[in-house]
């Protein structure tokens, strides 16, 4: 019987960077390049706003048009 964690490899620096990226993105889409099982490049990423955030942002504008 295996605990499932005994053979786990530690995360590489690139994997950690990708996870940090995803956590900061919160909501959205990304397209990445992977080589040899490792993320090497983020081609594009876009954060999606939640509706309530968009409404809040419109209510917090101060400058004149």
């Amino acid at each position, binding site marked *: 019987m295996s605990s499932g964690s005994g053979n786990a490899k530690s995360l590489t620096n*690139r994997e950690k*960077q*990708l996870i*940090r*990226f995803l956590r*900061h*993105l919160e909501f*959205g*889409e990304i397209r990445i390049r992977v080589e040899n099982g490792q*993320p*090497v*490049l*983020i*081609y*594009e*990423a*876009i*954060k*999606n*706003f939640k509706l309530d955030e*968009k409404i*809040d*942002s419109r209510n*917090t*504008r101060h*400058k*004149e*048009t």
Partner: protein
Amino acid sequence: MKRFLIIDDDEGMCWALKKALEHENRDILTATSGSDGLALFNVYEIDLIFLDIKMQDSNGLEVLQQIRQQNLEVPVLIMTGYSSLSIALQAIEKGATGYLTKPVQIPKLQETIKKIFSEDDITEQKALPELPGT
């Protein structure tokens, strides 16, 4: 009317982006330095910023940081030809809304803009034609 600000030290890129994004309901401003871009940002209400990272007079990430010190909400789309995981991470940590690597395809850019201003999506989905035989 939406107002976009393009900050890129490559005048050709500014011109090409402006031409590609021009639309009757858009006002597009361009700046070829970080300081000029920040000056425009301080005067006008901006709905979306396109920001290059590697500019001769300034670092786009520092410009992004200054923008975020004043405004947490305006969408900032980073565009860079010097992409890496580390740069992308720094950009998102400093508050970038999106991240694209150059060369940027115009349809991709339009799609990204649509996602940022996603209130138009429902209208466009309704306008899709029906497939034959369905």
